[in-house]
């Protein structure tokens, strides 16, 4: 029977698979970039800048995966409305905003990347709102815990 614990485990497994995919992708970035240059999607003179920016994105992505892993580990332990989770959500949200910068650099050489910039910014905004909600929930829980 499908339950909440299995759902959290699935999220944790997905996070680790994506983390592994990010690590593997790092080895093939130059080759993938060359392929898109050959197809004309990326401008050839921006090869170094695009590869550099993608590596910056991958590093930030790996950090986000680590934060997600910690967040899911806390949820699995039943610690949901704790200040630590608010801090993790805040960091993930900021990481989404920061990832827009290297993506904007890539946009100079590959226009389609602008949609990724918009998506990352939107995701960062949504996570910020979720963080605000959890922050309020932590305050309510604390008040409830200290009501005698």
């Amino acid at each position, binding site marked *: 029977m499908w339950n909440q614990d299995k759902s959290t485990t699935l999220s944790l497994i997905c996070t680790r698979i994506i983390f592994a995919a990010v690590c593997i992708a790092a080895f093939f970035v130059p080759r993938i970039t060359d392929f898109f240059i050959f197809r004309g999607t990326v401008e050839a003179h921006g090869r170094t800048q695009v590869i550099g920016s993608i590596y910056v994105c991958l590093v930030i992505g790996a950090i986000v995966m680590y934060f997600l892993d910690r967040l899911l580990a806390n949820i699995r332990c039943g610690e949901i409305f704790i200040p630590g989770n608010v801090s993790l959500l805040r960091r993930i949200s900021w990481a989404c905003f920061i990832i827009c910068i290297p993506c904007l650099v890539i946009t100079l050489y590959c226009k389609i990347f602008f949609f990724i910039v918009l998506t990352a910014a939107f995701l960062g905004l949504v996570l910020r709102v979720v963080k605000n909600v959890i922050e309020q929930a932590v305050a309510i829980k*604390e*008040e409830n815990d*200290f*009501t*005698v």
Partner: protein
Amino acid sequence: MGKIIVNLDVVMAQRKMPAGALAEAVGITPANLSILKNNKAKAIRFSTLEEICRVLDCQPGDILEYKE
């Protein structure tokens, strides 16, 4: 900004009431009584206050005090 101070330990000492006995008589856990005694409580239910007043034979004002 002012603050509500809980003087439960003072009233308990005056009535010579041990913490364990008070917790049992009021119907709260010793941990919650400790939170109340140590001024860590954020709120107190009327039902808890009523029970404390009944067991200690006192008024809410004897237990709660407002300080600037």
